[in-house]
């Protein structure tokens, strides 16, 4: 009965590879997000989707491409992985667009690029 689930939990891959992270929420929320947390614990918004439509696309390299097949899923595909992409990636969802409600976060995907 996990509310926001991400897979995989850990991902170790070589530079130059392409990888995907999946996220699903069973809360019926309309809005989903991807955040990146660096080694200093700083959380930065990457993307925001409302009902399958992209709302926010922060300054993120175009090697990162989100895909939302339906409002319960928001996947993140990363091409040509670089060492600097190593971080923890969090998916989150909220009931109301923007920040007017609390977010529910997944448990994170720790990506290590070697």
């Amino acid at each position, binding site marked *: 009965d996990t509310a*926001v689930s991400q897979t995989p939990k850990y991902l170790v891959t070589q530079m130059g590879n392409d990888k995907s992270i999946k996220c699903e929420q069973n809360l019926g929320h309309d809005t989903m*997000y991807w955040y990146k947390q660096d080694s200093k614990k*700083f959380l930065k918004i990457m993307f925001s989707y409302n009902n399958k439509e992209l709302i926010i696309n922060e300054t993120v390299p175009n090697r990162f491409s989100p895909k939302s097949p339906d409002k319960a899923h928001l996947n993140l595909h990363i091409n040509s992985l670089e060492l600097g992409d190593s971080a923890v990636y969090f998916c989150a969802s909220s009931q109301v667009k*923007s920040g007017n409600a609390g977010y529910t976060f*997944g448990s994170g995907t720790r990506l290590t690029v070697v």
Partner: protein
Amino acid sequence: SQQGEEDPQALSIQEGENATMNCSYKTSINNLQWYRQNSGRGLVHLILIRSNEREKHSGRLRVTLDTSKKSSSLLITASRAADTASYFCATTDSGNTPLVFGKGTRLSVIA
């Protein structure tokens, strides 16, 4: 861009003591939220306070908001070892923007 700035960066207290963390932000906000993150886990929403509210309580948590000073504080009373975690404040303006998080305060509660 980073909006919130928590203070202190790290805090260590004895079980049973109160813990106070502060958050300052730069621009006008619609609401401010506090989250907890245990080591290796996702963030958990604790409390939301709107810009027209000054104080809010939830169990052992008390949050205040001073919009004139652009600051908020989170007080955890009678702390427990299980409160050991990082605490983040996050803000959003009245527009269509996702939450912007601060750097967090690392709280250690020693039994």
